[in-house]
Each structure stands twice: as C-alpha cells, then as structure tokens.
C-alpha cells in the first residue's frame, strides 16, 4: 500500500502542476568543467529544453519554455533539424584532447528540412536570413557559393525515418567574428535568461577573454519515450569556453569558478528540473588523488565517455544540502603537486591541415589524419569544401598511408561552378592502426573581378575547415545508457554500439592569398592621365591666348646690358 501511494505521488510530481492537454516541457541545465593539460580549463554549458509537442506547421502556437522565435521558425520553414554554431578560436585536439562538442572557426550552419518542403534552396535562404536577424550574425552571407549538400558526413542526429540528403544544407562562414552581440540573443533564448541558474556565469567580458569560445544551438526531434510512438522537440544550447588559467593565474593551475567567471553560483534556475555541475577529476597516469575539489561534491559519477573511463565530481544545485553551509557555490580545484606535468594521452583520431606551394598561381592543400590506436583500423569520412576561386585539380588527389597509396572506398566529388557553387569532396578513407594518412590536392588560383574582393583583400581568403566524421573504436566497452538519465554532455551524438563512439573533428581553416590587384591603380591612372592632359592643355591654352607682338630690341644682348651697368657706375647715360 505504502509503495503504491509513493508511486502515485511520484507520478503526480512528474506530471507537475502543468496541464495535460498542452505539451509538457522540461529544462535541464548543466556545466561541465574539465581541466586540460597545460593548465587550461574547458567549461561546457548545456541547456536542454525538451517539449512534448509536435512542432509541425501551425499546429502549436503557445510557448512556455521553448523560445517562440525558434519554434515559429521550425514550424514555418519545415525544419527537421537545425545546428548552428558560432565559434571564435580553434580547438586544439592534439593537446586538449577530444572535445565534447567541436565547431569550426566562424559560423557553421547545417539544417535538415522536412520532406514536405518543396523548394529547399528557398527555405534555406530564408532560414539563414532569419537566423542572422535572431543571432545578429552575418549568416545572410550564406548563398549558393558556400552551401553544399554533403552525402555522407552529416547524418540527422535526431529522429529521422528518411535520410534523403537533398533535404540537407551545410555552410560555413570562416571569416565570421563572434562577439558579445551574438551572445546576448543566445542568452535571451534561455528560459531563465542570465538571471538565475548556471547562466549567471555567462558574463561576456570573461567569456571572450579566452582561448576558445563556441556557442551553438541544436534543434532536433527526439523520441518522447522508449516506445517512440510520439515525437518531442529538443533544443540544446551549448557554450564551450577554454580559459587559460595557467597564464592568468600566476603560473598556478588551480582555478575556481570565481577566478574564471568572476561570479559564483547562488541557485538553480527555478524552472529547471535538473541543474548540475560536473567536474572532471579523472585520475591521470594512474596516479590517484592528484587534485582536490572544494566544497565536497554531492556525488561522484563514473562514466565511460568517448572511449575513456572518467570520474566526475557532481554538484546538484537542486539538492537542498548544497546551499546549507554557504550561500553560494564556488567550485575550486587545487593540484596537490604543483609542478605536475600531466600529459594527456594523444587522442586516437586527430588531424592537421595546411596549404603549401609558392607563387600566386598554384598551390597544394595537404591534410594529415592520424590514427594512434595501437591495433585497430577504422574508416573516416572526410569532407572538403573549397571555394570556387581555388580550382582543384582532382587528378592530383593523392592519399598516402605508410608510403603506400590508400584508395578511398567511397568518393563523391562535385566540381565547382564559377560564382555559383563550391567544390565538394567527400571520401571514405580507411585508416590503418597507428598510421598517418596524407591527403594532398593541387589547385590553381582564379582571378576575381575587382568588385568580388572583400574588404582588406590582402589579408587572404579563408577556406573553411574540413570535417572528419568517424566511429572511433573504444578501448573500454561502453554500456547503453538512457539519454534522459545520463549527463547532457554524453548524449548529443547517438552511440551506435558499445565498441565505438562517434567523433566529429574539424581541421584548421586555411588562409590563402589570391592574386590581388592594386585597387588604387584605376585612380592613379586617371590622375596621371589627367595631369598629362592638363599640362598639355595649359601650354596649348597659353599658346592660343597669348598675344604676340614684335618688340623692338631696345635692351639688346648681354654685352649691351653689361656695358650699360658699367656706364651707370661711371655716370654716363646708357646706350
């Protein structure tokens, strides 16, 4: 009897004070703090709004936690899935390890549309324009010259029954600069704004004083429950920052929330059903207890994340015991041995890209992909988007692993059209165990029309990062976890099975110089010609307007003048 009553109470609590006919919505907020080698600290915020309503065309118009601006967009334009990331800086996978979420420098937008959308290009154009208004970003510069439709790299992350890639659009603007003006509208979408909960830490002047800043919005349909008969919509707002605490903390690797954000946590967002702070305290190099967190965590979580066993100290802001002793929470981490140089093991998959060659006519793009797994080979999908003004020579494409040619098992190449669309190159490459694969392709630089150059053309032209998507074999077997129960930072990418995990990596964006004309030349030519014309005109004018009349040689030559001077001295009248 008691058990039953308790269960009934639980159900009541779960149903909450909300009503049954309007869709239930729930908010979860989470902050993951992970110390990186070399003293950097990565902070990943995730805010997840889940709405048990079907956001189809015009069906729903009453919003509670889900922001109306985005909901209307999804409904009006037939969006199935939307991923927008605005990033400043570059995530150094080699030294910082695998990120929970990486994004390329600049702005990245990829969208799956509903099959009911007839004109995908029109909806895409409209969507990017509206998003640029919502987020104050220059997304309106997304047009056909930087939009591609990848065939293999970007699968829907949410619920999808068809993956017809004609409904997918992908674009990156590597030149986009991210700043406070983009952060403010992003914060405005949070139900609690930046007034309560974890979002009080989002102070712009600290967030942009960092080595890496990436904010993102992910909208996708998800299963409402295990039976998956109904659809819920999920909005994830993520923000990742990397603070260089080592250089700003006088050579110490210790940090605290206050030192990083100049704020502390005082409460959870009253609308959130879950509000947690995770601190990565995984023991490194098998030496335990190297670091110490204060205050004592609410609990400790052990999980397998990205193929590695991790330990997290968890602070549950909703647990009443947390704010009993002090009114605010200032998580602090101290290293017991200050001169500890903990080297992160090299990530299994990482990549590196550069442009080589000399002169302004041809060049070469080289990509190095590393597989450091000691005994497992795995395939990787590489996506390259190159603007049309770099004319790729596909016959020069070479893929070399361990000195031998590596033939890709799948290749999709869409050549560029001048001023219309970029090059798209997608390849599925097998990476042998413990190997480096070098992919090179040569290109020729095109000449642009003088109006096509951006401001400051001598800065160079950006080529967006190439994208590597792979199922990386895990060293430790992972368990299937319930998405609703596990921490948010583990649940954006669906895991296929226990033996591998999904990784998407972005390489460095490239900066390529194009032959740039001297833009002042036309003006110089005009000036020079005009001066010549004016000088000619002047003498001609003089010639025409001067009146010439014969003058009597009254003064005579030089001799006569000299004689006159002498005569003047002598007091004799001149000649």
């Amino acid at each position, binding site marked *: 009897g008691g058990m039953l009553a308790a269960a009934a109470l639980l159900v009541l609590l779960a149903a909450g*004070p909300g009503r049954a006919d309007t869709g239930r919505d729930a908010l979860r907020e989470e902050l993951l703090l992970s110390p990186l080698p070399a003293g950097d600290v990565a902070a990943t915020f995730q805010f997840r709004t889940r709405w048990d309503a079907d956001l189809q065309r015009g069906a729903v118009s009453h919003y509670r936690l889900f922001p109306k601006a985005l909901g209307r967009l999804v409904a009006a334009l037939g969006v199935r899935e939307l991923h927008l990331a605005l990033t400043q800086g570059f995530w150094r996978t080699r030294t910082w390890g695998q990120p929970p979420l990486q994004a390329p420098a600049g702005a990245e937008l990829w969208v799956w549309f509903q099959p009911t959308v007839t004109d995908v290009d029109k909806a895409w154009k409209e969507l990017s324009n509206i998003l640029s208004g919502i987020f104050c970003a220059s997304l309106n510069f997304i047009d056909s010259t930087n939009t591609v439709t990848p065939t293999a790299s970007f699968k829907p992350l949410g619920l999808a029954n068809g993956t017809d890639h004609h409904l997918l659009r992908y674009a990156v603007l590597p030149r986009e600069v991210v700043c406070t003006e983009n952060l403010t509208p992003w914060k405005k979408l949070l139900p609690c704004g930046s007034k309560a909960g974890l979002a009080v830490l989002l102070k712009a002047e600290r967030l942009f004083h960092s080595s890496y800043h990436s904010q993102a919005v992910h909208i996708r349909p998800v299963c409402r429950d295990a039976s998956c008969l109904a659809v819920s919509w999920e909005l994830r707002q993520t923000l990742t920052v990397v603070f260089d605490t080592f250089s700003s903390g006088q050579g110490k690797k210790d940090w605290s929330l206050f030192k990083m954000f100049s704020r502390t946590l005082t409460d959870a967002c009253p609308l959130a059903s879950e509000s947690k702070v995770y601190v990565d305290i995984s023991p490194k190099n098998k030496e335990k207890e190297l670091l110490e967190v204060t205050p004592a965590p609410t609990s400790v979580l052990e999980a397998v994340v990205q193929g590695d066993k991790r330990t997290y100290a968890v602070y549950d802001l909703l647990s009443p015991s947390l704010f009993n002793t002090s009114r605010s929470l200032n998580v602090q981490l101290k290293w017991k041995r200050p001169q500890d140089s903990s080297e992160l093991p090299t990530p299994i998959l990482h990549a590196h890209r550069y442009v080589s060659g000399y002169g302004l006519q041809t060049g070469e793009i080289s990509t190095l992909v590393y597989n450091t797994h000691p005994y497992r080979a795995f395939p990787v999908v590489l996506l390259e988007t190159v603007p049309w003004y770099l004319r790729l020579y596909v016959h020069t494409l070479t893929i070399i692993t361990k000195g031998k040619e590596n033939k890709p098992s799948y290749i999709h190449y869409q050549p560029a059209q001048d001023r219309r669309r970029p090059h798209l190159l997608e390849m599925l490459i097998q990476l042998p165990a413990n190997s480096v694969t070098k992919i090179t392709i040569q290109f020729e630089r095109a000449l642009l029309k003088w109006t096509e150059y951006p401001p400051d053309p001598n800065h160079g032209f950006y080529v967006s990062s190439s994208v590597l998507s792979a199922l990386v074999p895990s060293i430790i077997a992972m368990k299937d976890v319930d998405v609703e129960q596990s921490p948010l930072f583990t649940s954006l990418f669906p895991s296929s099975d226990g033996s591998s995990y999904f990784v998407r990596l972005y390489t460095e964006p490239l900066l390529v110089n194009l032959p740039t004309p001297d833009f002042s030349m036309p003006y110089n030519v005009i000036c020079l010609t005009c001066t010549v014309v*004016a000088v000619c005109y002047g003498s001609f004018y003089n010639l025409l307007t001067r009146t010439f009349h014969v003058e009597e040689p009254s003064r005579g030559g030089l001799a006569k003048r000299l004689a006159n001077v002498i005569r003047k001295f002598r007091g004799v009248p001149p000649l």
Partner: protein
Amino acid sequence: AASAQVQLAVPVAVVFAPGSVPGDLPRPLPFRDVEEMEISVNVRTSVMSRYEMVYRGTTAQEEAALDAATAREADAALHPLQDASLGSLTVYVVPETSSLLPQGSSVYVGKHRSALVRAGGGLAALRTRLRQLTQVMSFTASSVTAVLSDRVPDGQLGPDTRRHLKSSLGYEITFSLLNPDPKSHAVHWDIEDAVNRYVQPVLDKLSLVANFSVDSQILYYAVLGVTPRFDKESSSFLLSAHSLPHVINPVEARLGSSAASLYPVLNFLLYVPERSHSPLYIQDKDGAPVSTNAFHSPRWGGIMVYNVEAPASPQASLPLHVDVDMVRVMEVFLAQLRLLFGLSREELPPEFLLESPGNEGLADWELDRLLWAHTVENIATVSTTLTSLAQLLDKIGNIVIKDDVASEVYQAVASAQNAVAELAMGHLHSAFQASKKAVTSSERAFFDPSLLHLLYFPDDQKFAIYIPLFLPMAVPILLSLAKIVRETRQRKKEPTKMD
C-alpha cells in the same frame, strides 16, 4: 492627387413601416435620392461621400418581422430579408408610437447592417437623424481623416486618431505572460482555451479584413522598466500614468520580433508583479486607480497587471501556485483589441441604442466601418508609394526598371483605379479586394532590390575623380580671367589719369 477624386458611395435603403411615412415627402414612395458630403483632408485632398438613398414602403414579410415584441427579435427576423452585401445599409422607420424601441431612445442599431428609427418630427428631422445614423454605421469625417492622418497637417488631429493600426494584409497577435518572479509564483494560464473561446470568434469575423495569426509565450524574469512607488496608505505599489511610456522598452527586448513574417505585431502582455512589488496598481492622470489595471499603447498593444492575492498564511510554501482567471483577462484584451482597430463606441448621441455584438465581438456594420476605413487607407498608401517611387526614378535618370517591376507598377495603378471605381459604385467588398491587390503590387515594386538607389554611382563622386583634370585646367583659365579683370580695371583708370 488620385485620392482627390475618391468618392465613397453607400447604398442606403430607407423602409417606411405603415403609419410612419412623414407627411411632407416630396414624391410618392418609392423614390431615390442622393445626399452628398465633402470631407476635406487637406488643401489638395478631399473625399466625397455619397449616400444613395432608396425610399420605399415595407413588404409583407418585413411588416411581419417588424411585429416582433422587442427590437432584438425584429433585428434577427429582418436579417434574412436584407441586402447582404458589404457596405449597404437598411433603415426601418417605425411609427412614433411603436413599442419596439424602449422609451427615451429613438434609434436602435442592430447586430447586422440594419437599424430601426422612430418616426416623428417631419422629413427634415428624419433626414438629420438618418445622416447621423448612416455616418455611425459607415464612416464619419473623423474616421476618414484618421486613416489619412499622414496627409493632415500637424496639430489638426486629436490624440486618439493616431491610435488606430495601419492597414495591413495581416496581423500577428501575441499574448505574453510576464512572470518576473518564478521563484515565488508558478503562474499558469489556459491561453489555448481562452484564445479558442474568446479571441477566435472575433478573428473569424475579422478574417475578411486581414489574415490573423495568434500565438502566446511565457517570459520569465521579464521586468517592467519602472520601479513602482510604494503607497503607505493602501500598502500597495503604484505606477503613475506619466511613467507608463517607460514601461514597455525593456520588455520589448524580450518579446522577440516576428522573424518569420513581415506583418505588424499586436502585443498583449499580462504582467504578474513580483512578490516584493505586489499588489501593483496603475494610476490615471488624476491619481485615481484604473479599474481594469490595464493600459494600452497605440499601434503596439496592451498591458494588464494581474495581482496575485497574498497567501493566507505567510508560511505557505513557495512558489505559490497561481491560476489566471482568463475571463477577466480576455475581457480587457478584447476591449483593447477593439480600440486598436478603431472600433470604439464612444461619440454617440444619447438616444442611440446599440445592440451588443454578442460572442462574435463585432457587429456587421462595425466590420463595414473597418473596411471603409481600410480601403481608403490602402488607396492612399498606394498613391504615396507610387509617388515616392516616381520621385526616386526622377532623381536617378539611368535607373534600370525590370519588366517584372514595371508590370507590378501597372498592376498597382490598375487595381487602385479599379478600387476607386468600385468605391464610387458602392461595391465595398470588391473595392477592398482591389485595394489590397494594389497595395501588394505597389509594395513589391517599391521594395524590389534592383531599385536601391545606392546601386547607382552618384554624380558628385564622378566629379571628385576628375578633379586632377579639372583643377590644373582651371588654373590657367582663372589666371587669364584675373588678367582680363586687371587689364579692364587699368583701362578704366588710365583715362582719369590722362585728365
């Protein structure tokens, strides 16, 4: 100049019940008559109104309908017998002794497009009354000048005339619940049901005028821009009338613009004050509390403050569960909606009796009023848009007009002329449709991206580029000019020296 010839024709049928025919009728029934009135907007623009009256006696069916016990029943019975087209009016003149109208009132305006008038006082008195009545049911001089307010010189308009919304092809209505203190108040409102029950019938009726979309949202931690003043006597917080203009701005940043459409947005905000500022009351200019605790902002929307009753016991656990009484809220919002559309029922003589519009919130003749005003406004907008387009083209001689832009302009002109012609014939519905089409076409032409004047190289910059040519060329010319001047001066001086 186009609106100078606009003529609004209203077909009016005046039906005399037996025993109500005035003795001094000029001709035997039935006959036709025309009454004209000129509404002058400014020196150049005026609108001609033309009431085309048809005087006739009742038919047998109408006579039977007029035998009803009350005016309301008679109105309902007469409705199927009338000319149902938009804009046309039917006035039934009943005998002076008729018991249909209650004592003291001599005019009854029904839910549809008809009215009952008590006879008496001869033809002249009847005519005055008819003029008043037809203006109430169609348009008045002030309602026409209000929609043409852009053309009226400043200072000649009352404060109320600028309250009306601009005519548009669609409107978005957003209801927002502002909860600045979610820790203390867990506020719930059943907006979906309230919209279906109270707002949707009105919008269904208004769907003839424009497209409407309704949505709602809840905004947490959204505060008003003004800190209310604490009043010790009533132990409540007060917002004075002069601080209301500052209330909206900080809220507006959170409301979220309508990114997906270009229609104007009507905002209706329900504000639940935070616990530390409750209860909160709005004061009018004289310092008296406003009974509805609400105010509206012209062309923007309305705000209502909804106070939460303090819990009986101070130990009550927070957050306090609050269920909003949607009937009270929607009453205020619907009244504000009517105000924003300029459908207030204020300036009426005391002997006029108006039937309440019922659940639809809007009588047929009120819809007509809106259509008359919007049609005139649309025609004025088209003429303004096309005039400024013409001015732009005059300014830039080498501008490129694409074929599709040209056809839009032709279509806008044709539709506007069509609308004017239909108005003069008294076909309100087709005139309104034509004016809508004209607005769409003219805006499409005006906002065409190829007509951006910045795309064209301005002439003054051409001169700047050629300055290296013009300057050195000008120097010898100026020098020789100076020389000529000097020489002529010397030539003038020399003769005087000779003297």
